[in-house]
């Protein structure tokens, strides 16, 4: 999954800077994950696109809940 399109579509409203693909760390049900996502390194703002939240992420959540 590549979210460079999403990165280009949004900017950080806090500092006005661009969002760059950055490694973002997640955890759920005692498991850790990392995904390259658009983020503003300066402000620490991360973008989890809707397609990811409702797609792959939801799928992994379900698998972990019922592994």
């Amino acid at each position: 999954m590549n979210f460079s399109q999403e990165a280009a579509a949004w900017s950080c409203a806090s500092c006005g800077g661009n969002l760059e693909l950055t490694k973002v760390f997640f955890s759920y049900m005692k498991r850790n994950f990392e995904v390259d996502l658009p983020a503003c390194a300066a402000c620490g703002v991360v973008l989890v696109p809707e397609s990811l939240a409702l797609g792959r992420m939801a799928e992994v959540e379900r698998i972990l809940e019922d592994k």
Partner: protein
Amino acid sequence: MEKNELIAWESRCIQEESPECNSACPLHVDARLFLKEIQKGEWDAAYKVLNKTMPFPGILGRICDHPCEDKCKRGEVGGPIAIGALEKICVERYSGKKRVQPLPRKSQRIAVIGAGLAGVTAALDLLKKGFTISVFVSEDRLGGSLWDLPEELLPREVITEELSVFETLKADIHFGTRLDKALFEQVREEFDAVILDRDALKGIELPLTLDDDGLIAIDPATGATDREGIFAGGGTRFRGAFSPVMETLEGRKPALSVERLMQKVGLGFGRENEGAYPSRLFTSLEGIDPLPRIVPSDSGKGYTEEEALREAQRCIQCECMECVKKCLFMERYKAYPKKYAREIFNNERILLGAAHQYNVFTNSCSACGLCETICPNDFNMAEMCLEARRTMLKQNFMPPSFHEFALDDMAFSNGEPFSLCRHEAGTTESAWLYFPSCQLSGSAPGEVTASYNYLRDKLSGGVGIMLHCCGAPAFWAGRDDLFKEALAEIRASWEKMGKPRVITACPTCQNIFQEHLPEVEPVSLWNVMLESGIPASVCSRGTTGGTVSIVDPCVTRHDQVGQKNIRRILKSLGMEVEELPLSGETPECCGYGGLMYNADPTLARDVVERRTTASDNDYLAYCAMCRDNFAFAGKRVSHLIEHVFPAVEDGDPASRGWISWSERRANRVRVKEMILRALGEKTEGHTEEYEKLKLTMSPDVRKRIDSRRILEEDIRKVIFQAESTGKRMRSRESGAYLAYLQPENVTFWVEYSPDGDGFSVLNAYCHRMKIVGIQQ
């Protein structure tokens, strides 16, 4: 679930019990499978089914007296399947030279004296088990009285062919032996065990006790004679005639006993179901067309293959599956309660929550109890699943997502925004206490306060009011701690009010109180109304019109009086009732019960959608969640309270449509405000800053975010946080903002844009995976 509990659960479900044809067969030939293979045109496979159980399928398939047919369930709808005739055509056409694999030889030597059908059966069974077998027979051939049967019934070459297996397995056959006492004594000395074919030994004197019929006396369960190591069988007449299938069993029984004797295990243990026994399997014949038996065009020759196929197709493949047919939840997991019990056990005890699918399974049962009502043995999935949920919690593998939303909703109801308990205005005593429930207050706030006014008007002694949740969500979630806490709060308030009689408006509360708080003597609003009279305003308005179908709530299935009373009220309102196929004792759940909608929202939606198709009539509910769920599915549905205490005069309650979770909360707050205002009190508490934000959103967005279980409150918090900290993203194209907040277990995302003095919500979504940080 302990092992013994698993066994108790499993034994209740009869789906795996043998069908009648199988249990009525002394040998337990799987006739259902045999017929299924023929239905598929798989004749070789059908033959294999016979060969698996019958010692000599070529013989028995032709001459069996088929007691299976007497018990065939098809017999009640058109006539029993001609299993005997189908076996005949199968073995005539498909029995070939069988390959028999002798097992490694055991050292123990067994003698069989006499080789009628019982004797050769015993000999073959033991040969296949690897014993060394010697057969003593007076004739120069095996088979005894089989040779007396008519040639057209049992051709001679078939007997020869079928019995040639003894040569293949290298049995030691002693033809032309004199069968007498001397042989018996000699064999008894030389062999480890002896089996006697009583049919072949008729009239021969042996030192063994005889029975009333002059046959060697045996224990009917094991074939043991009164001398150790000597067994016998055969020669019994059934209904006055030679029964090939019983004769076969009479050979098989002593063979099994000998095997056990050689293994030094108990002869009689676990043999109750050897031979014919009554089946426990229930098979519904509802909706099965009576089809008569296919008659062969040439009665002398029997069925043609085409006729046989048609005859086999009449087999209904007996099975129970009654609960599964009616329950989408059970249907979806493609099994039945016995298997589910095993899966839950495995998940708990062996896989510790890692049995794929079974966490969500355990938490998706709506606990409606329909299965128990339908099941011939009262199997109750709810009981099993609720107990399993408690275990999941104890063992610490319950995912919080399964119940969190419902438990949060319950906490809201039992907290400051809704919770309340007061005497009637101007009184200090209550003979009655109205408990309208959290969900009805959430769905129909105006009607709730109107019904309270009605009760105050009709009843004397003071009618207090308690706003609270009965704790059902905690009960369903297996959260005994929270459930007890909710009940304790209710009991304490009720005691403080002077123990008034509780009037419920929600059938779930009524049920919970009856089961867990019976001292409050709950009575439903509708039963009170029948006693006290339907409001005059409703009666004077005349008919509210039309025909409705009542969706009885699942919790009322055992309350026939209550259900009848609802119908009486509807009649007084001038409404015609057309009953749904599943009503009264057998209603389904709307998907709210058991928190099904929490653990598996898709399943809950499908359950409701299927139910909406049961009738084209408007539905009439008397449970708020039923109303709201049917409305969400697009069905025209109203709640009884909307007809009796309409908030809108001359409105069309069935057109009200769906209601969001946020609105449900807001409505509860309104109910509390209305009650307090009537009491001359002010609302307690204060308004948070984020609650003051003005939001607008389109109906589409509202429905979408509601189905994602995102509350307006969550959205307000996200926007408030984003606006106060400036932490948000901006769309280069539209200028809209995107912000997120992870208050606890869920991360909420909101896309919005400023709109006048408020905000327009464009979208919202959420996930449970927590953002921990980013790489620096």
